[in-house]
């Protein structure tokens, strides 16, 4: 079970969180013309990386905030966590 550092609450076990997928996906702006391919990339196409991955989790049984977690998908090592709209360097 992962041990995730919620930037709002501190270290909490994985069972307080729910997974939200790739955090690098950016929703296209509303009312913008967009090609089928672009839209498919947003809705469906994911890289399924092996290695360092920025992903979304929601602290659903805690502060209910969506957070970003930088995690290695093969070793499960967590490097850093961020608030929803924190700048990531």
């Amino acid at each position: 079970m992962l041990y995730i550092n919620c930037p709002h609450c501190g270290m909490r076990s994985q069972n307080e969180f729910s997974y939200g997928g790739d955090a690098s996906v950016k929703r296209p702006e509303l009312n913008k013309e967009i090609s089928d391919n672009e839209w498919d990339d947003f809705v469906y196409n994911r890289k399924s990386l092996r290695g360092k991955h920025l992903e979304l989790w929601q602290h659903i049984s805690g502060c209910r905030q969506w957070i970003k977690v930088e995690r290695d998908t093969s070793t499960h090592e967590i490097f850093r966590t961020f608030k929803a709209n924190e700048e990531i360097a």
Partner: protein
Amino acid sequence: MTQAFRIENGGLINKDKKLSFKFNGKTYFGYEGDTLASALLANGVHLVGRSFKYHRPRGFFGAGVDEPYAVVQLYRNGETEPNIKATEQELFEGLEAKSVNCWPSVNFDIGAINNFLRIFLPAGFYYKTFMWPKSFWYRIYEPFIRKAAGLGVASTKHDKERYEHKYEYCDLLIAGSGPSGLAGAYAAAKNGAKVILAEDKPRFGGSLLTSDVNIGNQSGKDWAEGIIAELKTMPNVVVKNRSQIFGYYDHNMLVMSEKVSDHLPSTKKYHPNKRLWYIRAKEVLISSGSIERPIVFGNNDTPGVMLSSAAKEYLKVYGVLVGRKPLVFTNNDSGYETAIEFKKHGVDPVVLDSRKNPESEIIDEAKNLGINIKNSYVVVAAQGYKKVKSADIASISEDKKQLGKIENIQCDCICVSGFWTPTIHLASQSGNKTKFKEEIDAFVPGQSKQNEITLGAANGVFSLEETLKTSFTAGSELSKKITENDNKMAIPNVVEKKSSQHDKFWCVPLPKGKNYKRFLDFQNDVAVSDVEIALREGYRSIEHVKRYTTLGMATDQGKTSNLNGLQLVSEIENKVVPAVGHTTFRPPYTPVSIGAIVGREVGKHSKPTRKSPMHSWHEKNNAVFVDAGVWLRPRYYKRGNENLFEASKREAKNVRTNVGVCDVTTLGKIDVKGPDAAELLNRVYTNGWLKLPVGKARYGVMLREDGIVMDDGTTTRISENHYHMTTTTAQAANVLSHLEYYLQLVWPELNVNVVSTTEQWAGAAIAGPKSRDLLQKLFPNSDVSNEGLPFMGYMEGDLFGVKARIFRISFSGELAYEVNVESDYGNFMWEKIVEFGEEFKIQPYGTEALSTLRIEMGHVAGSELDGRTIPFDNALEGLVSKKKDFIGKRSLQRSAFIAEDRQRIVGVVPLDKQTSIPEGSHLVKDDKAPLPNPKLGHISASCWSVEYDNPFSLAILKDGKNMIGQKLFAMSPLKNKVIPVEIVSSHYVDPKGERVRS
């Protein structure tokens, strides 16, 4: 019966407390502190089971967790549990156990004929034989294999025992209480660290209980006792015996199974049977020791052949002689320690050492005691069927290829030592890439992956002095990092005998003309010849060899067999062992009861139960409840002998003719507040929300980004910046997360807050032509006329002093209202509604009537919004705005979603107007078409229309728009039904929706 093999003095058992127990129906006696294994051995019982494949007689091989044979069916306190290791089960008064895997009895087992047919049962036998014909599998092969090869039998009764889960955090978790674990725990505890020390056996001390060493001025055993006693007094230390750490998971989470009650005749009141600990440790010290490995020789599975360390443990811990004429077969000094213990108790052992001329302090001691030692000698084969009677022995050449003349010597047990295998399972589970250590012919942990360190024998270090030194140091250093204390302590002096180098020899060659079975895996009956076959047949990867031969796949997970299997593969393949590599160690290290894993989450505790504030009223009024997610909702209110069908029909009919009341508290409710609330709703719902006035409700549909309908419900504008959103019961949590996702991540610029208010409001739907009359009585001071409170209107009212929200919305399709009050007043509201409704013939209605009402109106619900449908499919395309953008809109342009023959909701009526159509039935054109019959659609919901008094169903049907009037068949192979049907409009009743506006 006397305990003929129990020695007079010695052992750590309590001889003042005699216990009686039964094995295979026969009564025996043992002592408190015995295991079932030691008590049986004390009584001279060596035959405990039959092997898995050949049903050969099986005895005891080990004395603990590594035991591959002695698996029994246990009976305790009227319950039974399969696959219990007799070597781990502590004796209690009245214990009963039976052999498994033998029929009709352990002494005469029909399956043993496999032993003579073994030419037919080589590696891969099951794969090769039971493949065809396929139809035989379920009827013949599987039951046969189960009966012939099964281990124990699981109880089919409800488990009365209780199991607990516990979460714990600590600075240092220590797996194993041998010298390394004790030293590490002591040093860390002295530095103030929070320490948990886990020992799987009942007694702490590990190897110190059986080895002849001194620490400080005490024996190893006394030193261990002293340390444990002191640790137990320290508030920062938890010491747990009977507790096995079986899994090492991510981020230093380890799981431990504590056997709280298995050693007692019955579980004490309020105590659990087992407790599962989830431990998050900052640091982990793995001090799990090592397991002696066998030397492979002919018939090495005969009862009476056992590990030399086990024989020593039975003698020193339990005061039991495993034989009176022991033969010790060793390739290292450990065998001598066992021989010396025998000798000290007046038994004359013979030692066969595969080495030519070994010299050490231990060997000198054995020689001084006058023990008969034969160097360059090996056991070629054990003789005897149900028990060792003698051994064929021979000298062996230096290259270990040639056997000398075979002699036979009498013996009643053969104690084998093929050196030691570090227990690296936990380290390996943590992700540590293990490495092969040439000097000990075994794998040891490599670079630490998580915060773990492995010390002592588990790390391939067999010197006590070095073990204590490294462990005290590690305990100090690890704790210092955490507590910043640095209490230096003196490492005690150690007196231990030095041993000499072991022999790399592990398998005795077959003598000419002999074809003895030489077993590698004792529980799964995998012999040397099986691995040879697998390799001959082309299996190369050790993982494939393992699966094909089942080597190491039994419940003991190959604790005694893995390394010898690797040795064999490396020899045949002419590779070094590290190049062969070992199979992956996975949790659990030992079998764990399913009950312990499930914990308290059984029966009604498997999920929370949510009840509305009106629950007790429903109970008092004969409601029959149904699970709606975690909620309990009244399905119908039973009157007299009514069944579900009759009651729900009555309730629905009453709504259509008079008035009914339904508990709708379970609907999800979300408060949406803030200056941008309307903008959020406008982006979330498919229809427009910017112009909804205060005091008005609107129905909305929300999509996922992929265009699929996520949920529907009404949202009401309570005030300028405050909206009250409702969701379906099932999607309440998902919708809240969905809104939070967009507000926090996608559109943080929107100034809106959302919060669940599901539990804050109790809701009652009042539906039926007389609902307005009733409402007027409930709110005499409010204008609830069609003008005062029009369809989709909202107002606040005063319900006899209680503030209420009144919504004019309808799910039933009738003139209807929904009244909400704060939860605490829910029951008050309900009672008032029923009281004042009496004159209008009010009846409460449950979810079944609710479904009937919505189905015949063609209102969609969860069975249509099933995660596969878009607005068009549900005839909701009128709610899809063409002007504005919203979540999922772009997806609606996908070609499948705009196809001419796109699926769509329709009504379905059986031609005979009698036969109800099972939900899930498929709609097909031709009921006689060959399979697979093309499916045009499926029945999503069925009811008995109270309006027309005949069955009516909704269906999602391909090209539904153009199918009205068509005749099809509804087929349900599950219910074995074929029903001719006609397709009609989904709006079966009141298609123009006049009633809700009346």
